[in-house]
């Protein structure tokens, strides 16, 4: 039977779901078949197998190639502006009245979010594999913009699939993609959101796989995507770890990140997995309520199943049909989540909780008015929960929020939601 409408957790204590005793989380995942514990794997049509195998081989070759790493590092430094600062939000810390709050400023990257860390890496791989075209899916449009940017930088043609509903609510990003020469194809099927954009990109790839690379934007999809995207995004956590050691002289006490597909959280958490003194907290989109269809929190309310090529927590009905989900933020409006998050949940290394639409909206103002930072609605979910958690901590403790994206893209949607003039 489905557990979709099961009772929500009353606290942010880690939830046990599969019941069985799971060993502590390892960083030595996935295995050769793409499994993070029981999660992950590869559930795709046979047509895509050869391309995925080719990607595994090329990715491992690139990882061990100092020239590849040097080229990527140079781009991340001079084109993206890395390292991104770790900023002590003193006014916010004072207002919240608890732990010292630090912001890992991924919003200051070129293109305004963490997504560029991954697209540059995958675009370099596209060139190494001698593929001549790139496709991508996007929800909030941040991955679409980052893909369009990487493709413009390298001179690759780029097609971005985007749900028609998301095209509406993230117009500035649609315009940016087009300015950089990408073709944005609105997807009218299903719920017209991120999930449908992934379906459509997969369908394109089924026919174009021989010359096209699909730059998946999150830690989802068939092996090796969850691993590869995590690795490219791990620059966030690696930098953050070093910055904490140099600024604080020690590791932080807690780290909070929002989770849709889960790429910024995976990149932030992964380098800290073995640092068990650091609490890691992932925040899903709690939407309007706990019932199926009102939120996008598969780790909080869903159960393990297959979606978009891997085995992970997902929102499904009792037949295995994907359920509709809702979030105020296009980037979190997704019924699935990366398999490594499912692994971290069941191994209890990461605590997962969810944040409602209204709480997220409130925290937008909190950071805007007190720190002068406009935050992406996705990131606001992490912000809202982080403020609640910080309150329960002492003033000499430190909490880091992964500030995954900037909020300019959401200005028009915020105005609409608040009935204000844009």
């Amino acid at each position, binding site marked *: 039977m489905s557990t979709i409408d099961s009772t929500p957790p009353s606290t942010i204590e880690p939830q046990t779901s599969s019941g069985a005793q799971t060993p502590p989380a390892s960083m030595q995942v996935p295995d050769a078949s793409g499994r993070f514990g029981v999660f992950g794997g590869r559930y795709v049509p046979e047509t895509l197998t050869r391309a995925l195998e080719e990607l595994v081989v090329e990715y491992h070759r690139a990882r061990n190639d100092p020239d590849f790493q040097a080229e990527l590092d140079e781009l991340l430094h001079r084109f993206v502006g890395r390292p991104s600062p770790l900023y002590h939000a003193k006014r916010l810390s004072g207002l919240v009245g608890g732990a010292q709050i630090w912001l890992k400023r991924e919003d200051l990257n070129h293109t305004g979010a963490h997504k560029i860390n991954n697209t540059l890496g995958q675009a370099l791989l596209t060139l190494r594999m001698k593929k001549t075209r790139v496709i991508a899916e996007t929800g909030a449009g941040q991955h679409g913009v980052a893909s369009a940017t990487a493709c413009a930088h390298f001179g690759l043609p780029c097609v971005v699939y985007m749900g028609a509903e998301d095209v509406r609510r993230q117009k500035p990003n649609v315009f940016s993609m087009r300015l950089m020469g990408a073709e944005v194809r609105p997807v009218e099927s299903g719920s017209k959101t991120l999930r449908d954009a992934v379906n459509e990109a997969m369908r394109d790839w089924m026919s174009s*796989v021989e010359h096209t690379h699909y730059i998946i934007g999150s830690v989802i999809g068939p092996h090796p995507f969850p691993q590869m995207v995590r690795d490219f995004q791990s620059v966030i956590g690696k930098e953050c770890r070093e910055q904490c050691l140099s600024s604080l002289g020690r590791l932080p006490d807690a780290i909070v990140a929002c989770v849709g597909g889960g790429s910024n959280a995976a990149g932030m958490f992964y380098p800290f997995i073995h640092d068990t003194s650091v609490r890691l907290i992932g925040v899903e989109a709690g939407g309007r309520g706990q019932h199926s269809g009102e939120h996008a929190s598969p780790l909080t309310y869903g159960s393990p*199943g297959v979606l978009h090529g891997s*085995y992970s927590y997902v929102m499904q009905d009792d037949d295995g049909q994907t359920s509709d989900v809702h979030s105020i933020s296009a980037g979190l409006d997704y019924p699935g989540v990366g398999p490594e998050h499912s692994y971290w949940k069941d191994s209890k290394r990461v605590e997962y909780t969810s944040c409602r639409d209204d709480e997220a909206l409130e925290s937008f103002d909190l950071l805007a008015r007190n720190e002068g930072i406009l935050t992406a609605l996705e990131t606001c979910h992490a912000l809202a929960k982080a403020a609640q958690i910080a309150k329960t901590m002492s003033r000499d403790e430190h909490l880091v929020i992964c500030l995954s994206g900037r909020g300019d893209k959401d200005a028009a949607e915020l105005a609409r939601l608040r009935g204000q003039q844009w």
Partner: protein
Amino acid sequence: MTAIDDLFQRLKASGKKAFMPFVTAGDPNMAFTSKVITRLEQLGCSMAEVGFPYSDPIADGPVIQASYTRALGNKLKLQQIFDQVQQDRSKWSMPLVAMVSYAIIHRQGPESFIAAAKQAGFSGVIVPDLLVEESQMMSSLCRKHDFNLIQLVTPTTPPQRALRIAEASSGFLYFVSVTGITGERTQLPDGLVDRVGWLKERTSLPICIGFGISTPEHVKLLSPVSDGLIVGSAIVRCLEGAAASEEQALQNASQLVSSLLAALET
């Protein structure tokens, strides 16, 4: 031995090829799907492939995807498919094979799914998103229940892998004719006939070709090298107006199937 194994033995003995139409379950309702299967058998089809609608089908083109959306929009549930097939099974003598995404099978539990499908009257299952690497459990459960697991080989499958897939399959091997999603094509790729021929010399399993077949010319080209042909989108397209007029939809599908069957006979 399943009804599918039996079918191919009989066809082989009489030098004939299988013709296998695909029909979406529950588009627009199961009673109509049952009528379609009855008509397909009357026309002389050898077997029917019943597509189980799935919310996120990545291997399917727009025609089949739209049929899934219509069926699910009418609140089709898995149990209704099993119930209708079981109720009408005695009317049909041809084997039925289920086309089901692994998301659905996983949710039921593979063994429960196989048992329910078999009890309803299916003889095998095609799981388009279950790769040979992930198929061991399904494969052994299918063997245990005397149920066929039909796996797919595509134009991007390297030769040695194709042999491995053939070894892990039963009933027949589904040879996907094109690199891409389901849907009618005006042209089938060069080299298809040779690739099927190569594989046919190396496996004892019957080979059926599907994806993109929509005209009598396709049938004439591919039937000599294969043991059977599968036609999906072209038939589903004929049936898409069933909600407005069932009779018209059945007539359109019958015309198409008759012309394809005639091409198969010649």
